[in-house]
């Protein structure tokens, strides 16, 4: 049994599909030299059998837009003074900018690095997105989340 302390202030991303916790953590790109971060992998879940959990201390203001693309069934709890102050509803976004990378080698975004990567949702159930430039369809369901852009690429 692994015991992780509860956090006083921060967020807990719960019910992450087992195996996707690292992906979410990579995308959020939290500075682990300044913040306490716990990634719990493959924990027992009454609801889903197995799950990953991410706990981030002292950070509440983070961009959660991509979470709905990576794993829409996660729950996000904002913690203040050790209690859950609010729950953030995660949705599958209709339009995403600079979150998914087009994997079509013929797409203009493969050469025009200044062009924003823009995708529109075309099938919510299958989390399918269409590239605004080349119309390539990318499904973010299952193991296809490799197309998620590492957030720091755009923060430089």
């Amino acid at each position, binding site marked *: 049994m692994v015991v992780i302390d509860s956090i006083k202030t921060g967020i807990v991303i719960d019910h992450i599909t087992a195996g996707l916790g690292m992906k979410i953590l990579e995308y959020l790109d939290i500075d682990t030299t300044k913040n306490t971060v716990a990634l719990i992998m493959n924990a027992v879940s009454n609801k889903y059998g197995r799950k990953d959990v991410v706990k981030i201390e002292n950070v509440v203001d983070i961009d959660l837009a991509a979470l709905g693309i990576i794993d829409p069934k996660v729950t996000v709890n904002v913690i203040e003074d050790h209690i859950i102050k609010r729950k953030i509803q995660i949705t599958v976004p209709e339009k995403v900018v600079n979150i998914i990378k087009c994997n079509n*080698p*013929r797409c*203009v975004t493969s*050469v025009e690095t200044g*062009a924003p990567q823009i995708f529109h949702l075309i099938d919510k159930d299958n989390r399918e997105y*269409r590239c*605004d430039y*080349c*119309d390539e369809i990318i499904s973010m369901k299952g193991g296809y989340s490799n197309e998620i852009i590492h957030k720091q690429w755009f923060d430089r």
Partner: protein
Amino acid sequence: MLKGKSLLEPMDFTTEEMEELFLLADKIIEDPEQYGKSCEGKLLATLFYEPSTRTRFSFEAAMLRLGGKVIGFSEPNSSSVAKGESIADTIRTVACYADLAVMRHPKEGAPKVAAGCTDMPVVNAGDGGHQHPTQTLTDLLTIRREKGGFDNLTIGLCGDLKFGRTVHSLIKALSRYQNISFVLISPEELRIPEYVRKEILIKNNIPFQEVKNMKEALPSLDVLYMTRVQRERFFNEDDYLRLKDRYILDTAKMKLAKENMMVLHPLPRVNEISAEVDSDPRALYFKQAKYGMFVRMALIMGLLGVEERRN
């Protein structure tokens, strides 16, 4: 109102705007010389990052016949592109000089990037294996003039439906007319892309069949749109060699087709239509190429918002 718009894919124009263009094209065909001064003082930039004969000449001829002038490049090595200039910077610079830009680019979506960086109208003259909307204007004008309209037609598209940008644009444009059905003839490897199947055909409940046998499909068709298997779209030469001779239209096959079936081809052809078919009155691909210039004249006038200034 087309003035100031860009044409990146066929759906950028409504069917009414398309009709407006076709009506103007009809008038130009009747008496082209009457339009010889319509674009006096206007400048067209042709930015061709990929080789082209028909489309570039057609645009340049269209502008010159309208009394306008043309600047541009026909291959990127003769411009700052060779120095690594971005599409965004190129178009911003060109917009300082020209009134309208026509762009062909091997990368899909390049004209969209360009249009997003300028207020000048940008016309997609073919982007990789994606879209070619002015070829579609040509195809539609030909069908409209020869068949009287677009409704109730069975359209066969044959050859490279995967990388054939003219095919994608034509299906998109025709999907808005009544009672259209498609027969998509291709080898397994060159079937239409997923977005065309899902987002255009299935989403709009348009009847279509995907078949491999051209002979079986021919008797039902009102229009046969042949395409070339394009060597330049393949990353693997072996795949190209294996697929290039799959469909060849000859006089024997033409006997299976309706007496009034139209044969169209965006050109250039290699061997997918035998030269012997050229004398068949149903072979309209050279007429189609001529219509291309007239519809581009109408397009240029529409985007620049010029009056029908006559001689």
